[in-house]
């Protein structure tokens, strides 16, 4: 390496030394000859003669150093730079085209790398296994908290949460085989810093989370066993490095200080290292506490409750244990634990599934793997188009340099040298494109991250380039350079000297070699992308015009959680009643109500329900049902119609009869005969709890997802449930957003210590829910436009080049009496087959490509006719313009100037 470095920078020095050495030799020899009695001048001459041709020896010396290729490369580089400098327009177009293609790919690959490929930044990540479970007989759920994320494997839902007592027992029992640790993302929690309440992202972990991951604190300590296992653990928290820097300015004296979490005080004992974002790529946290500390702060009382499943588990295998052994052991022990409990007999035992945890949690990858692959594939198509485009330009350029190239060959340049010269130029272009692309990647990158946003919050990713990124980017660029540079280079090295030299002086005729292939490729590729973009635009349209089942207009929504400010039991109910009354009385408010969960916010609770048999037989199982806790006035406010019976009233309190409303879908299941379900009894869960009397039937409404069907839903009065946080709905007479400040004022008057958050209009919330679809659609539509542009420029470039080269031919035709109109037809007709063939290939490729897209589309089938028709029309128009302009120009050529051309 040093040698190469020296060879480049000490080039002059090397030459001087070489000359010096030769001179010394000659002079020393001459001196010797003089001593032997030669005349001085004659001696010098003789010495020179004996040495022979100095230049020849020098060249041999240079070659002997083995660095000749480097010298040549330097020359090629200078030559390429000079050539591009002389042809700035060509260079600019080529570099911009490549930068677009490379930039799109680099941005997407950075994301793919971060989400799908990078291992967790902990030692030996390959020993990590995430623990999931699957219930063979689906439908029934035997856990009461479904906030844990479930993912699908085929039709089976795989879940990843366990109860704390189960986790604690499993951790102790499995200790010889694996270091089992638990964690649960807390979402945003109320943190009081410097006397001010704010929301921070919380994470609850078992005490051994950090020791098992082998993450050492940046400052202070991580957790010790007592932080979790003590009956009443001391409340201690760890802060993420970024949160510490942003909120406390990196103040080291923070250790030992107290911050408020909920209505409690917790002591900061440690700062996590920078770059550690937890085990879920994309779900980062600010404040970390132990599971039991969180249980205490949130007063959830789930620590000893084996029915509340909320702890996610991961394990680090001990040396010598295989994943299969751990899986079997975990399953046996879990089933034993479940058997020991009295109430689970009619559920099948869950099956344990281990998923490789090297790169962190699984669900995020599974969720975005396909969209990312799709986007990556599309970006590669764009890059291919860009390369084809630049290839066309290069080809045209090398054609116009035929005289120069043939002169070089005639003067004895090696054919390989000529090809290398051209390839060097491609390389320079590609590297410049890479530089521009990396810049653009930064711009595209932020747009891409929104693809992964959930509930309006973009996740944090470590998009910083690593060695893999650098290697792939460089390799990709080189391959691109090969794609567009190899053929022109190969062609110019294969130049037939005779014809080329003869042609050099005279008129050049004929078309651009491969021109038709270039046109067809451009047309085909852009057709694929346009059809895909059309499908996505239609998907957005379809999602927008969906039947929601509720009325989003004039609706302002926000969330509040009085339990985070210390409210308990009846106080919570009173708080909500007060808030509802104050909001309803505020000016501009037509209706105000609240519910445990809002629409499309991602929260949901579902429980197994069964319907009591009126003739006294055993209850009939209905499967999992979504449960909502609502306030009076809810249905009127959100616009879900009440079809029969009555809604919730203020008199439905803890002491009153338990009542419930069901949606139409559930009503059909309850009374398949179409009779009225009102007055029947619903029973929750697997325990004979107090039954609920059905008091009303509502319309069907979508809740969690626009794409999924309406779920089976029940509504219970909030006063009869253990409601904690809630989403408020305010129906205004005017613009809902203009109500925001009024609402804040009212809520602050009710109690300023309760933070309210996520305030937006319901329509905005719907848009947010479609964020991913929309981002994907925008991205693909953008790619489609880009492809169209590239295709138009490419087709235009190739055709106008061909027309220019045929100027003299056209002149002859005109001089011989050809009609301009006939000439135009001729030129258009000549390019038509390429466009048609390219289009046909494009349609075939699109048929295949849209099949890949199917799961992203909504209400649109692959090769959806309007998208295809639209894409063909748009592309046809672009191709027509790209063809007609050169044809028109050609027909306007004056015969005389055409004949004189060159």
């Amino acid at each position: 390496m040093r040698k190469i470095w020296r060879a480049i920078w000490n080039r002059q020095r090397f030459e001087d030394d070489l000359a010096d050495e030769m001179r010394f030799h000659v002079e020393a020899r001459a001196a010797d000859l003089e001593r032997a009695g030669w005349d001085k001048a004659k001696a010098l001459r003789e010495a020179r003669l004996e040495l022979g041709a100095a230049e020849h020896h020098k060249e041999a010396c240079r070659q002997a150093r083995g660095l000749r290729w480097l010298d040549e490369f330097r020359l090629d580089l200078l030559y390429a730079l000079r050539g591009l400098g002389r042809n700035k327009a060509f260079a600019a177009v080529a570099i911009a085209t490549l930068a677009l293609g490379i930039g799109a790919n680099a941005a997407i690959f950075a994301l793919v790398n971060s989400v799908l490929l990078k291992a967790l930044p902990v030692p030996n990540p390959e020993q990590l296994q995430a623990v999931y479970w699957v219930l063979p007989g689906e439908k029934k759920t035997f856990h009461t908290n479904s906030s844990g994320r479930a993912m699908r494997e085929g039709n089976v839902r795989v879940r990843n949460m366990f109860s704390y007592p189960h986790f604690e027992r499993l951790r102790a029992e499995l200790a010889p085989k694996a270091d089992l640790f638990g964690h649960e993302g807390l979402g945003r929690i109320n943190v009081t810093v410097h006397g001010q309440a704010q929301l921070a992202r919380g994470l609850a972990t078992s005490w051994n989370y950090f020791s098992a991951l082998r993450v050492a604190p940046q400052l202070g300590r991580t957790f010790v066993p007592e932080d979790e296992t003590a009956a009443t653990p001391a409340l201690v928290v760890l802060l993420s490095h970024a949160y510490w820097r942003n909120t406390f300015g990196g103040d080291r004296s923070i250790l030992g200080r107290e911050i408020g979490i909920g209505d409690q005080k917790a002591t900061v004992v440690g700062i996590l290292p920078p770059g550690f974002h937890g085990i879920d790529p994309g779900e980062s946290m600010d404040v970390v506490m132990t599971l039991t500390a969180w249980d205490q702060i949130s007063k959830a009382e789930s620590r000893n409750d084996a029915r509340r499943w909320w702890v996610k588990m991961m394990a680090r295998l001990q040396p010598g244990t295989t994943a299969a052994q751990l899986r079997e052991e975990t399953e046996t022990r879990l089933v034993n634990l479940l058997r020991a409990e009295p109430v689970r007999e009619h559920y099948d035992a869950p099956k344990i599934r281990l998923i490789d945890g090297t790169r962190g949690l699984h669900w995020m990858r599974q969720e975005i793997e396909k969209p990312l692959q799709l986007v990556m594939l599309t970006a590669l198509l764009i890059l291919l188009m860009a390369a084809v485009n630049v290839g066309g330009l290069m080809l045209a350029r090398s054609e116009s340099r035929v005289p120069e190239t043939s002169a070089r060959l005639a003067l004895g340049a090696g054919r390989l040298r000529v090809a290398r010269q051209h390839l060097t130029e491609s390389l320079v272009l590609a590297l410049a494109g890479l530089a521009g692309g990396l810049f653009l990647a930064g711009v595209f990158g932020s747009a891409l991250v929104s693809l992964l946003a959930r509930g309006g919050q973009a996740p944090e990713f470590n998009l910083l380039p690593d060695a893999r990124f650098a290697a792939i980017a460089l390799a990709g660029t080189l391959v691109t350079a090969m794609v567009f540079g190899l053929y022109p280079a190969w062609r110019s090295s294969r130049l037939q000297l005779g014809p080329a030299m003869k042609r050099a002086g005279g008129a050049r005729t004929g078309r651009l070699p491969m021109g038709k292939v270039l046109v067809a490729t451009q047309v085909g590729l852009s057709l694929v992308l346009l059809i895909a973009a059309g499908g996505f635009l239609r998907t957005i349209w379809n999602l927008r015009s969906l039947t929601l089942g509720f009325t989003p207009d004039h609706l302002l929504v926000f969330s509040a959680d009085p339990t985070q400010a210390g409210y308990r039991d009846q106080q919570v109910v009173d708080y909500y009643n007060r808030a509802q009354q104050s909001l309803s009385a505020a000016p501009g408010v037509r209706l105000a109500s609240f519910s445990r969960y809002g629409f499309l916010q991602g929260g949901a609770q579902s429980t197994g329900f069964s319907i009591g048999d009126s003739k006294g037989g055993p209850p009939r199982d209905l499967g999992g049902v979504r449960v909502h806790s609502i306030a009076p006035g809810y249905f009127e406010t959100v616009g879900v119609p009440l079809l029969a019976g009555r809604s919730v009233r203020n008199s439905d309190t803890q002491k009153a009869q338990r009542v419930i409303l069901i949606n139409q879908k559930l009503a059909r299941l309850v009374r398949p005969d179409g009779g009225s379900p009102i007055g029947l009894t619903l029973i929750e869960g697997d325990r004979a709890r107090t039954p609920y009397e059905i008091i009303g039937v509502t319309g069907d409404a979508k809740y969690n997802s626009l794409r999924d069907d309406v779920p089976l839903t029940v509504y219970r009065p909030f006063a009869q449930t253990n409601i904690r946080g809630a989403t408020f709905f305010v129906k205004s007479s005017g613009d809902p957003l203009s109500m925001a400040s009024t609402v804040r004022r009212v809520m602050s008057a009710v109690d300023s210590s309760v933070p309210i958050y996520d305030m937006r209009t319901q329509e905005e919330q719907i848009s947010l829910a479609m964020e991913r679809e929309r981002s994907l659609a925008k991205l693909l539509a953008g790619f489609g436009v880009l492809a169209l542009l590239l295709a138009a420029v490419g087709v235009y470039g190739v055709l106008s080049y061909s027309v220019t080269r045929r100027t003299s031919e056209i002149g002859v035709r005109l001089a011989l009496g050809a009609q301009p109109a006939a000439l135009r037809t001729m030129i258009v007709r000549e390019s038509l087959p390429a466009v048609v063939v390219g289009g046909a290939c494009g349609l075939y490729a699109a048929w295949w490509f849209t099949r890949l897209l199917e799961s992203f589309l909504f209400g649109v089938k692959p090769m959806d006719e309007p998208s295809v028709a639209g894409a063909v029309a748009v592309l046809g128009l672009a191709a027509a313009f790209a063809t007609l302009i050169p044809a028109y120009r050609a027909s306007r050529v004056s015969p005389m100037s055409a004949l004189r051309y060159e």
Partner: protein
Amino acid sequence: MAEAELLPGTLDLLILKSVSLGPQHGYGILLRIQQITGQALKIEQGALYPALFKLETRGDLDAEWGVSENNRRAKFYSLTAVGRKRLKAEVGAWTRLTMAMTAALNASAEEL
């Protein structure tokens, strides 16, 4: 005196040998080779320098600018450890070759 043509590859060996006797500049190496071969070999003076460069690039020789006996700036070559090892190996190989060749060329019908 009749000068023999140099066999291909032998120049490298001769250079290594002559430098092994002490650091020397290019012209000195030429003189020394002529001296130790008793002027019996014809050395192409120009071929000397590419050979030197090759050996230097390969790491057999070290080069340093110094002052010659007549107070002029000259490039002095010396043997590196690698070069010493190579010299030893090549001398061995050469000896085996010449012995085998001599034996073969002196063979007579009776000895078979």
